[in-house]
């Protein structure tokens, strides 16, 4: 089988396999991963690609996710295009090395399948695993469909390599990871034209020995950290450009955020991940009934597309943020983010926060409709957080 024969086709694939195809099309050179439900199939298919020679990559089997990320770091320092995938506890175990990848400015791409943290033991989706890595410095994308998963994989390498930061993109356990959808698998020629081989700006060269990540005194550390922050700001511009370029070549684009019927909306629902898909249908129905309700999907979580978010939300009268996560002792994490983005604005908008679907509990259309009904009939939130559907 040749790469040319299995690309440039439409295929029904799971979200996990969409990741694998994305990595194949991106011609990753080193893959180091440890299997964990619900991520396993991502690396399973990749290992087959490597074994059959479809993908000319070194597949490194490791004994833990900490080592997986360590191996990716080593490979990336040597100048290889590098990929790993994990989930929940695996991502948590990687935590230390995620800091390392960011600090050493290595464009490792990481797929995380959102899975709730145990105990109680769970394999079902929620976002606490990836959002726990909020302050590490990863670029973070949240995907809605299998097509978006594949496209984001390819975009992720390009963005990472342009700004020299690791990129993590996220898909919901089972709802995407194990659900099949028709996916357009673009041709390898097209992908090659979009994503040229990685040319590292600095890398480990045995002919020119250098140490990476050495002791950095207070005289330099701050400046180097601010360079990471500058790279994040740069990433906002780069991510937008890359998405536009992608759209030009492949005919599909997603933006950093996606407003849906927001122009005249009185109430805007803010979602991420697969809840967005459900919410879209509810919005369509409500619009048919003449209700002025819109939807804002947050695709890029870090860096935060502040200006884009403000531009959309400042037009609304009320905003409701649905969080499939919880920052214990505070509120939903997306709600915090939206509030902080809007706080310094002159116009104050009531922001409702609904926490829903933790540990993979279904978030149904009628649940979202209830959220919309509640927000329409309530002038101002009486509680900071509403635990929608909790049986307590």
């Amino acid at each position, binding site marked *: 089988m040749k790469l040319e024969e299995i690309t440039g086709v439409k295929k029904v694939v799971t979200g996990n396999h969409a990741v694998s195809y994305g990595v194949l099309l991106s011609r990753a050179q080193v893959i180091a991963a440890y299997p964990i439900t619900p991520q396993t199939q991502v690396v399973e298919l990749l290992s087959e690609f490597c074994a059959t020679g479809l993908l000319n990559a070194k597949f490194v089997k490791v004994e833990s996710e900490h080592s997986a990320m360590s191996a990716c770091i080593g490979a990336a320092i040597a100048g290889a295009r590098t990929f790993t995938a994990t989930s929940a506890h695996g991502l948590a175990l990687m935590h230390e090395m995620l800091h390392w990848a960011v*600090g*050493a*400015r290595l464009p490792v791409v990481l797929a995380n399948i959102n899975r709730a943290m145990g105990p109680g033991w769970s394999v079902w989706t929620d976002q606490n695993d990836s959002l726990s890595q909020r302050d590490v410095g990863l670029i973070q994308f949240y995907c809605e469909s299998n097509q978006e998963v594949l496209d984001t994989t390819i975009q992720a390498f390009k963005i990472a390599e342009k700004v*020299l930061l690791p990129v993590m993109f996220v898909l919901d356990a089972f709802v995407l990871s194990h659900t099949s959808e028709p996916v357009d698998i673009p041709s390898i020629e097209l992908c090659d034209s979009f994503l040229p081989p990685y040319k590292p*700006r*600095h890398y480990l060269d045995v002919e020119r*020995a*250098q*140490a*990476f*990540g*050495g*002791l*950095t005194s207070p*005289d*330099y550390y701050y*400046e*180097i950290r601010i*360079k990471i922050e500058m790279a994040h700001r740069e990433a906002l511009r780069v991510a937008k450009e890359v998405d536009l370029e992608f759209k030009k070549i492949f005919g599909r684009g997603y933006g950093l955020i996606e407003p849906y019927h927001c122009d005249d909306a009185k109430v805007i629902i803010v979602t991420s991940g697969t809840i967005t898909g459900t919410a879209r249908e509810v919005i369509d129905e409500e619009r048919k009934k003449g209700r002025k309700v819109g939807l804002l999907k947050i695709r890029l979580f870090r860096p935060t597309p502040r200006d884009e978010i403000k531009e959309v939300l400042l037009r609304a009268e009320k905003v409701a943020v649905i969080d499939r996560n919880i920052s214990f002792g505070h509120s939903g994490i997306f709600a915090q983010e939206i509030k902080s983005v809007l706080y310094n604005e002159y116009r104050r908008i009531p922001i409702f926060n609904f926490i829903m679907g933790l540990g993979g509990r279904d978030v149904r259309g009628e649940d979202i409709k209830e959220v919309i009904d509640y927000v329409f009939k309530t002038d101002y939130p009486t509680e900071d957080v509403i635990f929608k559907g909790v049986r307590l």
Partner: protein
Amino acid sequence: MARNFKEMKESDYPLCAISLDTTLLNKTGTWRIFRPVYENKLPPCQDACPANEEIQKYIYLALQGRYEEGYRTILEKNPFPAITGRVCFHPCEDACNRREFDEPIGIHNIERFLGDYGLNKVERKEKPKKPRSEKKVTVIGSGPAGLACAYYLAKEGIQVEILEREDLPGGLLRTGIPAYRLPREILDKEIKKLERMGVRFITNITFGRDIMLDALRRRSSAVFLAIGAQKERSLDIPNEESKGVLEGISLLRRVNLGKRSHLGKKVLVIGGGNTAVDCARVAKRLGREVVILYRRTKQEMPASPEEIEEAEKEGIKIEFLVAPVKVLLNRKGEVKGLECIRMKLGAPDASGRRRPIPIRGSNFAIAADTVIKAIGELVELEMIPKELEKTGWGIKTNDWGETNQKNILAGGDCVTGPKTVAHAIAAGRKVAERILFDLGLKEQLPIKDEREPVNFAQLNTFYFDKAPRVKMRQLARKERRSFQEVNLGYSEEEFLTEAARCFSCGVCNRCDNCYVFCPDLSVKRLADGYEFNYDYCKGCGVCAVECPRNAITMYPEGGL
């Protein structure tokens, strides 16, 4: 770039913490409080080998396909691996650390393979040599001690003459060990090896009768007495002198030299040592009905457990806790049986084994046509010239085989009493080393290895997989009517499989673990081994822990 950070512009800052040059100036070796040292230790097999063979080394060489070098490594300590590979009772395998992991390495089988390889592939290429030296040494007795001594002397160019009273050389290797354990063809090839080296064999000459010590002394720089212990101990029971009572050692000699055995139909063998078992297996092969009588239990039997097992497999019965009282004769004065008494075990005696005590009134008779006594061999003291000082059992010598007479040395069974072939070979080599030193052909005497052997607990067995010992193919039971060899040897594949089981205790075999694990890249590969770079080695000790074979030692740095 700006000289200091206060003058630095944004563009001066690197993207991340990267050194501009190598960090080699940071000699992290100064942090070290423990120093790893490559230090090969003494493997327990070598320690246990009477001949001190470098077993680990020849297995290591063999695994690399360097069979000839492996063979030559054995020759350094033992000139006859094809013999010892067959007949040695391998104390090395008892000491093998692998015994505590699964099963010991089949060391003697490996030795046999290399020995046969040497005889068939290496020795064939050797051209006959003439002695280079004017010096001449006479060896009396062509058993393993005499042959080994001759080998190491001839190797240095000495003229060696071996005197042998039988028709053919080999001593006890030929007269004592049956052909099913040591085929004559192998023995002959080993002797031919010596002949090619210039050693002269003079047979049919009896020391003390045909030729005297004084005469030998005059024509030789040194004389080596290796006459063995070939006299059977007597039973001290009535009618022992009867014709139907044979001495084990002389029965073996007769059979092994192809003479008539004089065995009756029903044979009793008295004794529990290797001679007794050899006699029984020989008689069985000659179609006789055989029972061994031993006065203690199987646990105390001095014969090799493998020999006992083979004897039992071949249908030989062993009666334990039985001692002979009297040989029973018929009217014609022929043996008709043996009166015996039952024994029980009492307190341990000087040998550490429990002493057998007769049970009063338990006497009984066993019918037999022949009784073979095989309760141990003695040195023929009458053969020893009277000017030589003796011990209670043989010739008195010092550690180097020197007797009270100048240039007269002795070794092997005639000094120690009956021991093994490997012990005799070691004794022969030691005497040769002494003679070479005395003749000025060797600058120093070898130093005894006083190191403690490596034990099992000192190994890191994480790196070893369980693997069963490769069993040697054997002649089927029903075919054991002839004197055809019983143990059939390893194929090359079996040999390599078994060799690969070796832990290489205490000796680096270049497994690369230290090289792979060193977090400071301070292990350098050399052509034959490794070297630490102490400029950067922090002394973390990972190499020593991960070395599977304890070939790295951590020493405290000075002042600790």
